[in-house]
C-alpha cells in the first residue's frame, strides 16, 4: 500500500513536472494537445524514475543479509515520507477543485496563494519528507535509496529540459 501510494504520488508529481517544463515555451492560444502531451510525457519519464528506484531497491533487498529488516525499514521510511507528501498533495488537489470554479478572481487567487508558493516550496517538501523518513530508520542503504529517490524527484524537470535542449522532445 505504501509503495503504491508513493508510486501514485510520483506519477502525478512527474506529470506536473512535465507540464511545468513545457509551460512558457509555446505561445499559441489553444495548447490543449500540447499540454496533454507534456503531462503524459512527464508521467512516462516519472515511470522511468520509478523503475530506476525500484530496480535499485530490489537489488539492495536481494543483496542484503537481512532483507526482511531492510524491507521493514524502507516501509517505515516510505510511510513517514507519505506523512509529509500526502497533505501537500491534498492541498494541491483541493486547490484544483477550487480552481474549477469559473471565476477569474478565484482562479487567480489559487495561483497567488497556493500554486505559486507551493511550487516554490516543493524542493523543500521533497527534502523534508526524505529527512523525516530517514530519521525513523537511519542506515546506509535507506539513506542511499532515499537520496536516490530525492535526486530523481528533483532532477526530473532538469532531465526533461536536457532532452528538450537536444531536440529529443518538443
Amino acid at each position: 500500500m505504501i509503495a503504491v501510494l508513493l508510486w501514485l504520488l510520483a506519477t502525478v508529481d512527474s506529470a506536473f513536472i512535465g507540464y511545468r517544463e513545457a509551460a512558457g515555451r509555446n505561445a499559441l492560444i489553444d495548447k490543449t494537445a500540447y499540454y496533454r502531451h507534456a503531462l503524459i510525457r512527464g508521467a512516462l519519464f516519472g515511470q522511468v524514475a520509478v523503475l530506476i528506484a525500484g530496480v535499485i531497491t530490489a537489488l539492495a533487498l536481494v543483496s542484503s543479509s537481512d532483507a526482511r529488516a531492510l524491507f521493514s525499514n524502507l516501509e517505515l521510511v516510505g510511510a513517514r515520507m507519505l506523512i509529509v507528501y500526502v497533505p501537500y498533495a491534498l492541498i494541491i488537489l483541493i486547490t484544483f477543485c477550487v480552481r474549477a470554479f469559473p471565476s477569474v478572481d478565484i482562479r487567480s487567487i489559487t495561483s497567488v496563494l497556493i500554486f505559486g508558493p507551493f511550487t516554490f516550496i516543493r524542493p523543500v517538501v521533497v527534502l523534508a519528507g526524505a529527512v523525516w523518513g530517514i530519521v525513523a530508520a537511519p542506515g546506509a542503504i535507506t539513506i542511499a535509496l532515499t537520496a536516490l529517490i530525492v535526486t530523481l524527484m528533483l532532477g526530473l524537470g532538469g532531465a526533461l529540459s536536457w532532452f528538450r535542449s537536444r531536440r529529443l522532445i518538443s
Partner: protein
Amino acid sequence: MSLSTITRRGPEISDAIVSFDPVTLQRKPVKKADVLDQFRELRNHEAVRIVQQIPERDGVLDATAVDKVLITSHCEMQRMSEEFQHGKRVAELLKPILNALRDGGVQNPIRIVDIGCGTGFVIRWLAASGSLGDDVELMGVDFNVALLGEAQRLAAVENLRCKFAVANAFQLDEPATVFISTGILHHFRDQDLSYLLQQHCRPETCAFVHFDFHSSPMAPLGSWLFHAVRMREPLAKHDGVLSAARAHKSRYLLEMTRAAAPEFISAIYGTRLWRMPIPRVFHSLVGIRPKYREAFIRNMGNRIASLGKIE
C-alpha cells in the same frame, strides 16, 4: 535571480536594450557599453550580467539576439498571463464597456487597439474566444518588428481574426475606439505618462482600459516568487520583478489620468477583491466618455463592486 531585485527602481533591461525613433519607428543601434554603464551606475549587477550575455557587433547589441531574448521572454510572460486568466479578465471588463458603447450608438466597427502588444497574447486570446462580438475589430500595435512578426505568425497558425501593425497606436489610419494595454503604464513616468494619457483625447476614442501590476508592499516579493518558479529567461525574471516594484499606485494613476485626459471619467478596477485586502496581481485603469457612464455601470453587474469611484 537575486532577491535584491525587488529593491530596484529601474529601468528594466528590455527598455534599455532597444531603442526606436518615435517618428520614423526605425530601430536605433544600442551600444552595449552604454547599457552596461547605465546598470553599473545603478549598481544593478544582475542586469549587468544579463546584458553581458547578449552578443554584440562592433560594440552594438546584436538586434537579432535581442529580439530572440525578447520573444522568449514574451512567451514566458504569456504563460503567466494564462495562469492568471488575463485574457478572460480583459474580456470581462471590455464587454460592459463595448455594450455601453453599442447602447450609446457608437459607429461600427468598434476597433480595439492594444498598445505595445508584444507577441499579441491579449488580442489573439480575444480573437480566439470570439467573445466580444462580430462588430469588433482587434488590432495589436508595437514598435518591435520581431515581436509583431511573431504575433502575426501565431495568429496565422490559429487562423485568428485580428491584425497587427508596427505603428504608433495614436497615429493609425483607422483610429481606435478603445485602447487597451497590459503592463505598459509602469514603463512611463511623470510627463511621459501624462503625454501617453493625453493621446487618448481624440474624437474617435470612447474608452480605454490599461492593465498593469497592482502596486502593494507585497507585490515585488510575490512577483519575485512567481518569476523564480515560472520563468527561465533571466531577462524575463529580472524585468518581471522590477515591473511589480515600479508599478504606479492607483491614486497616482487616477490623478494623472484625470489631469491628462479630462474628457474621460476614470476609475481603477480590481484593486480590491470582494472589498477585502486579498493580494491582486493586476488592476486596471478604466476611462470612458461621460455619456456612456450610466450604461457602463449598468452593464458591469456584480463586478461594479470591484470598480473604484468613477468620475
